[in-house]
């Protein structure tokens, strides 16, 4: 049964590579006409999900709907309306950028005449379009990859780390392009490790860890719901302050986090309630020496995925 207003729906998606579990029952719902940030630590299953969504890999179980239609073996034509850049952009090194796009245009759905130059303009690559791809920088290859993804004027765009190798101007340009596409009613799914970039770009995020979705929702809503306020209190007032805050927020909503700077109480609540917390402490006769309000997508990501303090390895 197709879900209305959803460009992508996955139900119970599972995939194993030998003994390695890549996806473990992934349920994803990407609303139409939004920019969806798809987040997860290395090995969480993001790229496997994108490969399944583009028909490169078949899931062991579960189902996928793309643009309101079931997608699986024998239903490849729905991809005519999907543009994708998965992992590193792939091109024939001995052909020019323009020739590569023309070669690509011959595969899959029909591409109108003149579209190749349109997308080259869109990614500011027209001046170098006649040069061989083997001479392109990483950023230029990335731009060409984005141009390739836009070739069929897709209703759904799947981009894996699209800002890789782009200079700051390129990143700003990409952000504007993707926002403009969403404003036109297209859906953009961006998988990225640059959380600050996703926070600025995405309307909705989905965070996966160990092959399962751990959170999904609008960025602002998630940050409000999953936000936190950090309050520094004197060590001998921790018990009083903690009890006072739990009376306001509920049992288990406050934890202690010490660092070299002193003792902190971390309250799980909407950062907009920081003043309420301060008032509650004052009412209990405790005065915080410092209050930091507001979670970032990064802190939320690290907490949900268990990546914090894992070093370079991630989860």
């Amino acid at each position, binding site marked *: 049964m197709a879900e209305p207003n959803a460009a992508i729906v996955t139900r119970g998606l599972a995939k194993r590579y030998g003994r390695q579990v890549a996806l473990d029952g992934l349920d994803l719902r990407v609303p139409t006409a939004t920019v969806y940030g798809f987040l997860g630590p290395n090995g969480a299953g993001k790229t496997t999900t994108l*490969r399944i969504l583009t*028909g*490169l890999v*078949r899931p062991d179980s579960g189902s996928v709907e793309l643009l309101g239609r079931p997608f699986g073996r024998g239903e490849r*034509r729905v991809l005519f309306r999907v543009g994708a850049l998965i992992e590193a952009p*792939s091109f024939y*090194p001995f052909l020019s950028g323009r020739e590569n796009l023309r*070669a*690509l245009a011959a595969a899959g*759905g029909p591409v109108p005449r003149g579209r190749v130059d349109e997308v080259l303009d869109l990614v500011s690559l027209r001046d170098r379009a006649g040069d061989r791809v083997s001479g392109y920088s990483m950023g230029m290859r990335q731009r060409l990859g984005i141009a390739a993804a836009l070739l069929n004027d897709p209703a759904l765009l799947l981009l894996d780390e699209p800002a890789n190798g782009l200079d700051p101007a390129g990143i700003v340009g990409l952000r504007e392009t993707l926002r403009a596409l969403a404003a036109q009613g297209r859906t953009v799914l961006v998988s990225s490790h640059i959380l600050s970039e996703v926070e600025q770009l995405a309307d909705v995020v989905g965070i996966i860890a160990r092959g399962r979705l751990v959170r999904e929702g609008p960025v602002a809503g998630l940050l409000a719901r999953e936000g936190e306020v950090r309050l520094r209190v004197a060590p001998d007032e921790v018990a009083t302050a903690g009890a006072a805050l739990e009376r306001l927020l509920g049992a288990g909503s406050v934890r202690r986090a010490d660092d070299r700077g002193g003792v902190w109480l971390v309250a799980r609540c909407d950062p907009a309630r920081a003043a309420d917390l301060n008032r509650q402490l004052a009412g209990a006769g405790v005065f915080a020496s410092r209050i930091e309000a507001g979670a970032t997508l990064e802190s939320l990501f690290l907490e949900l995925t268990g990546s914090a303090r894992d070093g370079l390895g991630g989860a």
Partner: protein
Amino acid sequence: MRLFGSHLRRLVRRPATLVTYLLLTGLILLIIVAVAAASQQVADPQSSLAARLILTFPSAWTLTLAMVVAVGGMLALTYGAAIAGAEWSWGTLKTAVARGESRARYTLAAIAGATVLAWAGTLIAYAAGIVGALASAAAVHITSATLIDAQTAGDLAGQLARTALAIAMDVSIGYAIATVARSQLAGIGAGIGLYFGEGIIGIFVPQIVKWAPFAATSAMLGGGTTAVAGAASAASSARLDPDLAVVVVVAWLVLAAGFAAVWTERADING
């Protein structure tokens, strides 16, 4: 046709195509120069006579073609392997599949494109070989009564058609091997291994190996067209009837192309 045309255009631009053409043409010309030199050997009159025969028209037409097929068959195999391996290792197959292209159609179009380019290379090398044979014959003062006669022209048309079939089979087998290997180098290595391995195994079990692709090609073209298979099957006298060999070569061609298409259709594309 759109996909086939696109494959053709990119293969024409591909350096591996030019390198393969130059290699094949260069090797054929070198062999002809060596044959011309051998024709002047006074110490070994038998070898000299055989060499003079290769440079004598009209028989030079079919003998030169046999040389081109012997060398070109292996190059066609490695060319097919290089094309398939690159599709996997460069990720260009991945990009096409992600655009909704049929994997099987893409594979078959790629094999067809590579086959057309391999045919062109074979014809170019053959033309160069004939020019080389004429020039060498003139240089070593071998005169021919006639350049070509009706009998030779008729034989040549049939041989060229069979050569085209053999080259198509070689490309398909190379493509299929590299599709499984997912790598240019591994595909080329395995292809060459199969080419020579078949001939070596043929020394021990000729009744089985005569059905193998390169032995069947050799039988179809009248023997001696593949480096080892020809020698092995000639030594053992185990050879298919030329007309039956055509059927066997067609079967190997269809099997290899079909296998490549089905394998690509079913594979997870992870790279």
